[in-house]
């Protein structure tokens, strides 16, 4: 077994384990357009990496994986750059607001409770809706009549009239929609706030939002999400290195080696899957994380204290 010492985390890790972990999360990233932070950080903590170092080093790794993934998706014509930029601007602004919200909540003393509840509700809600909706889609494909899908399909027409009145209408070609530029900006802000509160990149919230609210095609959603995540994580990596010294470079490089390859494989897999299949797989993953979090909240812990900064 080959081990390497992580100077910032202050621990050593099995090289193959971290390579494998990077590969797995990179694969998910390439398939679904999520950064995978919501999976990677808890997994790294399980292997003895301090939570702050796990989260910051993971951002560094996501930079590599999303570069690789964005490049692959760009070649397939799956990246809507103007849409990505609007979401990104909104996301950065929302993230800044979110950090202040967290500070306020911590001062009020109930932050942890609110974070955990937000997590479970968001994961459960997003995962549940996506799962149900894509199940309907898959059934329809197989010729099973799905009466419930009619109101879902008619929803956007009602919204359109209202949204078309907003200023700064722009035709997002790749996404196949003509909407106000304010819409992705506002959505970006909302996701940014949530992501900052939950301490994650927000890919798993952004993807369903793009699919259901902006009605973008699933494959363009994945590419555009990766594009947006790339820039968010560049910012996080530099800020974390500068102010908190929590980026462990050795850990990030090991994860990177696995995840950049995983992201390429993931993109290839994503190309072969139908949109509904992609959605149902992501929904299952999100629900799985939700169930794990719920069980953690409901079961009495074995050790009644935790180092501050952990979960």
């Amino acid at each position, binding site marked *: 077994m*080959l*081990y*390497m*010492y*992580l*100077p*910032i985390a*202050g*621990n*050593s890790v099995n090289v193959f384990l971290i390579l494998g972990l990077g590969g797995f999360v990179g694969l998910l990233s390439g398939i679904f357009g999520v950064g995978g932070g919501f999976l990677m950080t808890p997994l790294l903590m399980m292997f*003895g990496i301090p939570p702050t170092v796990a989260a910051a080093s993971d951002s*560094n*790794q996501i*930079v*590599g*994986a*999303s*570069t*690789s*993934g964005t*490049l*692959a998706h760009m*070649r397939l014509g799956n990246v809507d750059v103007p849409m990505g930029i609007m979401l990104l601007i909104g996301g950065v602004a929302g993230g800044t607001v979110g950090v202040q919200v967290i500070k306020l909540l911590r001062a009020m003393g109930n932050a*942890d*409770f609110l974070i*955990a509840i937000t997590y479970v509700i968001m994961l459960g809600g997003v995962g549940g809706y996506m799962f149900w909706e894509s199940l309907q889609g898959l059934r329809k494909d197989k010729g099973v009549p799905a009466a419930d899908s009619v109101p879902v399909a008619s929803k956007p027409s009602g919204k359109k009239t209202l949204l078309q009145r907003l200023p700064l209408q722009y035709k997002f070609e790749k996404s196949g929609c003509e909407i106000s530029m304010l819409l992705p900006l506002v959505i970006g802000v909302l996701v940014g706030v949530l992501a900052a509160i939950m301490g994650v990149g927000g890919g798993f919230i952004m993807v369903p939002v793009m699919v259901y609210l902006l009605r973008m095609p699933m494959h363009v959603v994945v590419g555009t999400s990766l594009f947006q995540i790339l820039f968010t994580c560049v910012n996080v*990596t*530099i*800020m*974390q*290195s*500068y*102010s908190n*010294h929590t*980026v462990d*470079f*050795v850990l*990030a*490089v090991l994860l*990177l080696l696995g995840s*950049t*390859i995983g*992201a*390429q494989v993931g993109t*290839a897999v994503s190309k072969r899957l139908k949109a509904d299949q992609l959605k149902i797989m992501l929904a299952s993953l999100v629900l799985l994380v939700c169930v794990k979090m719920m069980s*953690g*909240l*409901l*079961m*009495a*812990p*074995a*050790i*009644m*204290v*935790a*180092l*501050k900064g*952990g*979960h």
Partner: protein
Amino acid sequence: MKLGKNRMKRMIFMALAILLAGPVFLLASDAVAVPLELKLASATINISTFYNGTTLEVHGLVPVDADVVLQVSGPREEVHLKEKGKVAGFLWMNKNDVVLENTPAVYMLYTPAGSQAKLIGPELGIGYKALVKDIAISPESADKDFIFAEYVKLMEESGVYAINEASVAYGATTADGREFSATLTIPSKMTAGEYHVTAMSVQDGVVVGQVQEKLDLQLSGLPATISALAYGRPLLFGFMAVFIAVSAGLIIGVIFRGGGGAH
């Protein structure tokens, strides 16, 4: 005037006490001056690129009729913890902030076989129950013994707290004393810093002698370079981390494009 007289009396009394106490103290220290030796195979451990914890051989001499306890301990620090508790009656969450002051970062004991009961205890100043006496907790209303016991569990999981029974072996007995040896575990979670290895000789429930050696853990090679850069030039470090990540992503992307061109 009265005050000055009293002060004078007190000073004379103190001087007499010191004069009398001197020979008594010397006699006493003579009585406990039993042979106790401790030697470490190495006083420095280098944490290099492929380091995954290590072991350290120690040996020494202890009086024939005494037992030896070895202790590895680290710098005392302030530990910030979250105590878990129930919220809304059914959700287990991190609730209260608790701070343990003067807590050793590392605390490992090594004892010979079959003698743990008489070698570890608060009256000897050895073991977790002895440790908790030196630790202060805030807020003071928190249950110190319970919180520290839970903290010990957490530290035992990462290997930096341990009580290793039957881990000291006795060798030949000579005129100078009884030889002992042990293999100390240095877990990878033990970070760079200065630690102490202490040998204590225990006889009839009393610690009769103690020797201490310094043990230095230091970063070397790649870990030392990275650590220096991360703490010394953090902005440059951040940009470098991003640059390498983007390059790796691009390189892998290009490699895959070459492979993908075939189909």
